[in-house]
């Protein structure tokens, strides 16, 4: 405030003429004003004959007062108005600084293992050695394992989808009840709401509450794909598909997202 009384007269007088000069003759402007002025003057675009809005905002005392007041008000709104901002600030204050650092974020791995499992026996169907689905006798099981990295600084929960993209044969079989897909999750992972759309079966992956994944923990989802010996329409599937042995049926893809849970939802 002590500078205020001195500033008005010389400030307005020296700055007002110096601005046009600074554009035209920068050297003389540097001499007549303080050391800091050339920096700001240099930053400002070369002045034209008409005064810029920026300059008009600070030319007179009353303009400066209004301008500062408006900027202060805007700052206040920005600081107080955004709930996200406030949450961020409080979260940062309550936890170690490292948890927010991008350098040590969270990571996860997902694996898929394909197994052939025996589901039953049949008098009329004999499975040949090897892998693959055999109607009524052998199914395939895909075991998806999603593991939260041991280095994760926070607990996480899983969301995502399992998508089965079926071949034409797979779609036809599914429509006749000759392709059965089951999914089962462990450690709080649940699979639900399988829907067929445009040749794709999509199921939703969620995490039951209070089963958050601690660092290093994993959850398993078993998807079992089986072909019954008898279709819904009574057809003998093994005989009907006898020329289609070893045909691909469906490709299964798991897309999982691990999201940090709020501190309040972390398990002890």
């Amino acid at each position, binding site marked *: 405030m002590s500078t205020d009384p001195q500033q008005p007269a010389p400030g307005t007088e020296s700055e007002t003429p110096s601005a046009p000069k600074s554009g035209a003759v920068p050297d003389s402007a540097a001499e007549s004003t303080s050391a800091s002025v050339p920096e700001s003057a240099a930053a400002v675009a070369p002045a034209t004959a008409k005064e810029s809005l920026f300059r008009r905002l600070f030319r007179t005392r009353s303009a400066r007062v209004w301008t500062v007041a408006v900027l202060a008000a805007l700052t206040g709104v920005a600081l107080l108005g955004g709930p996200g901002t406030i949450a*961020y600030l409080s979260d940062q204050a309550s936890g170690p600084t490292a948890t927010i650092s991008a350098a040590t974020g969270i990571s996860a791995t997902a694996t898929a293992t394909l197994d052939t499992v025996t589901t039953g026996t049949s008098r009329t169907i004999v499975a040949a050695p090897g892998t693959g689905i*055999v109607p009524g006798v052998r199914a395939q099981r*895909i075991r998806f394992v999603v593991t939260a990295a041991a280095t994760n600084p926070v607990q996480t929960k899983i969301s995502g989808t399992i998508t089965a993209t079926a071949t034409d044969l797979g779609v036809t079989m599914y429509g006749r009840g000759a392709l059965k897909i089951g999914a089962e999750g462990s450690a709080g992972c649940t699979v639900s709401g399988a829907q067929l759309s445009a040749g794709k079966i999509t199921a939703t992956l969620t995490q039951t509450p209070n089963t958050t994944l601690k660092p290093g923990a994993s959850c398993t989802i078993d998807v079992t794909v089986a072909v019954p010996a008898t279709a819904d329409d009574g057809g003998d599937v093994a005989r009907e598909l006898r020329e289609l042995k070893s045909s691909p049926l469906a490709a299964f893809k798991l897309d999982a997202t691990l999201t940090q849970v709020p501190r309040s939802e972390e398990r002890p």
Partner: protein
Amino acid sequence: MKFRPRLIALGVGLALAAVGIPTAVTGAYLTTTASASADTALGNWCSVPDPAKKANVYALSDFQSVGSSRVLIVPVVRSAQFASTEGIANTTDGLGVRLWGCADKIPAGSVRVSAWRGTGAPTAGDWSVAPAAGNLAAARLNPAGALGSSLRALADGTGGQAIDPATGVAASTSRYSWLVDANRNRSDRVGAVPACGGKDCVVAPTGAAALDSVFSGNAAATPSGAVHGNSAVYLAANYYAPGGTWPKTPAGTAAPASAHPTVLTPPAAGTNPLEDTTGSVLQWVVLEWTGAQVPPSFEIEVFAG
């Protein structure tokens, strides 16, 4: 210190920008993604028709025990019940059997299949399972009954050897259609014609065929002769004329022996096919096998047409 409004403005602007950043960048919590995939496919297998779905398919393990052999006797007519389960090239359009199985190594044992012209309707006591509502494929003649016993005697080559004075033809010759016996093997679905010089010859089944010579247990087997994948098809043939008489020449004398396919015609509406004696509507098919054990997939399909 001098009041520097432009610096203040710059500072306030930077402060506003800085305050804005957390909202934009850390509005959500930390996340990461992971994905994995796997493909499923059909495997490889061998299969046979399911007797539970196809009534004209008979599993060997379901046969009835008579002495040391296991027997099944069914009345066969040309109808939807006896349509072949899967399309096969049947150039004779006749009666036939298809031997099904899945086995890398076909076990020891033997099988014999013959078909016989009927001589009149069976009595109620001749049945193990009487035909219900015209369902002949599910019916079973009692192999130990009067009709069953006489058919078994014909089937093992001991009955009907004498020449019938009334017709001049042996009973076996006048009723027999050969399907599977010791003369048969996988190389030919039509052949194995028993020798017969003329009207007074006696044709009858020989011994049973080894399972390994008439069954095919490999789903990938190339079609050849009687073999069609893991099945083998054999067609019936006989020497007699409809009704059991010997064929005649245009001049009215006994014709030279000539085997021909056993072809059935669908029963006329309102008739009882079991009363047929021509051999053109009804055939009694006698299935039998011996052996310690066969795989559960071994079965015999009987088809007409």
